[in-house]
Every structure is written in C-alpha cells, then in structure tokens.
C-alpha cells in the first residue's frame, strides 16, 4: 500500500536531512511538490566527508531501504525523474540489482564537493559535479535532493518506526572506522566509548564541519550538538585519542579541505589555503603569536564567502582549534612541539591491533526485519552480497588520517 503524497509528507515530520545541513525533510518535500514540473528526486549517496562511511554502507548493504525511500519521495512530489547519485564503485552492483528500470543511476568521481546539491543539479544538466552559487536552491527549481540516510529513515518511518536511529561513523583514536546506530538520548561519550576503550580528549565533529569539541556529555543529535556550539552534520566523528594531537589533526583536515576546494571561488581558494598554511606552520613549530592572530581574523572572515560550505568548514575548524585547545596551540608556537614534528602516521589502520567489534548502542531490531549490522569493517573491497570482516584500510584513502603527516 502506497501512502498518498500528503501522507508521505506527514510521515517525514520531524526528520532532518542526514547529508550535513540537517534541513527538515518534510519542508523540502512540500516545497518541491509546489514547484513546476518536471520534478526530479535524487537519492544522494555521495558522501564527500572523508571520515564518513554510512552512505556507502547503506547503498551497499541496505539498498532496499534507500530505494523504498526514493520511491516514497517520488510519490510525494509526483516526480518525473528518479535518480540514485553516488561515487562508490562497490555500491553500484547492489543498487543496480534492486533498482527498478525507471530509476536512473549516476556514478560520479569522488570529491568533497560532489555531493553538494548544486553540484548534483549541474550533473543532471550535463555539467561537472561542482557547486553553483545559490540562490536559487535546487528545491526551488523542482529538484529534490535527499541524502540516502534521510530516505532510508523515511522508509523506516513508513514501515512503522516512529524514531529510526541515526547512523554515525567514528574514526581516529588509533582504531579502524566503526559505524553505529544511534538511538535518541545517546551521548557523545557513550558513542566514543563504543569506538575505543581509551580515554578520549575530544572529537572533530560533524565530519569536517562541526569543529573540535571536548564536551562529550551532549546528546548525539542536531540540537544537542548545536547547543554545544558544534554540528551533527553527517554524523562522522574523528576521535582524538591519547596519542592524537589536535594541531596535527587540524593540519591534516585543513590540508585535505584546501586540496578539495573546487577552485571556483577566489575567496575560498585563497582563504582556505591561508588557513591551511598557518596551521601547517603551527604543526611544524614555525608559527608565531602574530600568525595566530591573523589566523583568527582570517577564519572569522571566511564563512559564507564561497558557493558551497567548504570555506565555512575550514573556518570553523581553525577557529575551534584556537578556542577549544588554546593551551595546546600555545605549546606549538616556535620552537614547536617535538612530538608533532616526529613523522606521525595518522592512518587509522597503521596500528596492528585487531579491529574492535563496534558494540551496538542498543539491541532493538528494526521493523524492516533486516538485522542492523554494526558494519565493523567496511572497506571499498567489501562486496554488498558477502561482507567478509576486513580491516577498513581503503577507507583511509578518504579518511583524514590518510593525509600524510
């Protein structure tokens, strides 16, 4: 039984987008429904965030949930075109196997900004996967882009679950990446304890978007993290374990962002590069107090200066490094921190310790009857049909730890 368009929009009430921005799903559905035909719905599985693997996992292991959500969203907006959009090669077969022939499958090259809504609009129009200036926003033009987890949650709502869990990816702390189902009320502390038994000095939250956070007693939710001055984003957390230096992690993350800038907006190219260069100097022990003042000023001026959110992520990262870890930062001024200047391998898989089983946060099973897999060892070679436990090594191609020291 397919619900009516307005029933589907009601089903989506309270759900927030899981791609990063957290936009209310029902609002998006309703505004695209009002747009003139032709209307397109896109299941966005292109997680540009290096520390996230939930979207790949959903496409590989739970494509039926994503496709059901896509079908419901298409009904809700009376879509003329339905598309699944992603870059993960391993997901292709699982999606093709289940997708009805009317669903288009578009696979693009992986890139931080390829999952931006406006990049997708450009690809649909035959262009490159690069962001466009807003407004107009895609949903004002009849293109509904919903993250694959947003769609999976819509499908779970339709199947009778009132509060489907969120997915969160944890990396860092010298551990392989772990994926978790997060039920309402779960704290960041419980989540990091499920990732590592070691002490945790903080996290880089919301992929690369939420900045550093040392308060772990916050609820893992949009509101919980926003109240702590951070952001849930795509639900990826880079844990800072006892051996992780925030300056080194920030330098690696900013280096990654600077390298991923789509080179379209002058303010983003120059601004992000400048932040990255200063934090790299801090890590190398060659930065002065005046450099830090300039870093703070530049970071305060960068948000909102690009067509997409990349410069905002870079700015928040730099600002939070300065405000959350002021003492650590001061220790890195000339002549710097000895430990940081040692060749540090930031790869999560560089430890020879066996991967920890990712403890599920609770034992509820889903109404889809599919047992929620903790997805311990997702890697790019895992086939959707037979996921053998493997170390998560290939994820590091994208993980920020993969950015060399």
């Amino acid at each position, binding site marked *: 039984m397919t619900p009516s368009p307005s029933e589907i929009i009601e089903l989506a009430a309270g759900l927030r987008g899981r791609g990063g921005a957290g936009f209310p799903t029902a609002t998006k559905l309703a505004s695209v429904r009002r747009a003139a035909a032709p209307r397109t719905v896109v299941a966005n599985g292109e997680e540009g965030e290096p520390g996230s693997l939930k979207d790949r996992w959903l496409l590989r292991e739970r494509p039926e949930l994503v496709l059901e959500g896509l079908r419901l969203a298409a009904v809700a907006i009376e879509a003329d075109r339905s598309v699944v959009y992603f870059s993960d090669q391993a997901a292709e077969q699982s999606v093709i196997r289940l997708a009805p022939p009317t669903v288009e499958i578009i696979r693009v090259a992986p890139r931080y900004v390829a999952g931006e809504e406006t990049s997708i609009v450009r690809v649909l129009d035959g262009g490159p996967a690069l962001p466009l200036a807003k407004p107009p926003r895609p949903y004002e033009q009849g293109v509904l882009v919903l993250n694959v987890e947003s769609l999976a949650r819509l499908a779970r709502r339709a199947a009778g679950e009132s509060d489907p869990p969120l997915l969160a990816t944890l990396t860092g702390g010298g551990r392989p990446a772990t994926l978790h189902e997060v039920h309402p009320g779960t704290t960041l502390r419980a989540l990091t304890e499920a990732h590592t038994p070691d002490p945790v000095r903080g996290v880089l939250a919301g992929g690369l978007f939420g900045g550093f956070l040392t308060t772990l007693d916050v609820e893992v939710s949009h509101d919980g993290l926003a109240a702590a001055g951070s952001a849930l984003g795509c639900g990826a957390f880079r844990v800072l374990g006892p051996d992780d230096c925030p300056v080194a992690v920030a330098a690696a993350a900013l280096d990654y962002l600077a390298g991923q800038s789509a080179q379209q907006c*002058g303010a983003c190219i*120059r601004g992000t590069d400048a932040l990255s260069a200063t934090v790299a100097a801090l890590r190398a022990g060659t930065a002065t107090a005046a450099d830090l003042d300039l870093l703070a000023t530049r970071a305060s001026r960068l948000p909102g200066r690009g067509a997409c959110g990349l410069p905002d992520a870079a700015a928040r990262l730099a600002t939070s490094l300065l405000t959350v870890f002021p003492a650590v930062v001061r220790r890195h001024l000339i002549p710097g921190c000895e430990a940081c200047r040692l060749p540090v391998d930031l790869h999560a898989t560089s430890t020879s310790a066996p991967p920890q089983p990712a403890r599920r946060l609770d034992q509820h099973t889903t109404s889809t009857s599919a047992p929620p897999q903790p997805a311990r060892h997702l890697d790019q070679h895992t086939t959707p049909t037979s996921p053998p436990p493997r170390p998560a090594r290939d994820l590091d191609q994208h993980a920020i730890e993969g950015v060399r020291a």
Partner: protein
Amino acid sequence: MKLLLDSTRCQGYGLCHEKAPELVDLDEWGYAAITRPPSSPEDDRAARAAIEACPAQALRS
C-alpha cells in the same frame, strides 16, 4: 533590493567596492565580500552601479 554575489564568478577586479564601498568590501586578496544588504534608496543606487560595473557579472540583485 537585494545584492547577491556569485563567488564563483568574482575575479577580484574590485570595481564593485569603488561603486558601493558601504555594501561591498574587498578581502586581503581583492575578492568581494558583501557587508550588508542595501537598505535605502541611496544604497539601491550604489548597488545598481556596482552590479553594472562588475566586468565578471558576479553581482546581481
């Protein structure tokens, strides 16, 4: 009126700032940054002049 900047188009010519110094600032590399929306008839005139002056068509209302 609104004053919108398409940052993918801005080439840092800086002419916008000459025409509307109250509304558009330039960063240390010369790229435009909108400082506030136009809020008076005078602002609107300045904004229109800036839009017309931009050789990269990076500004619009």
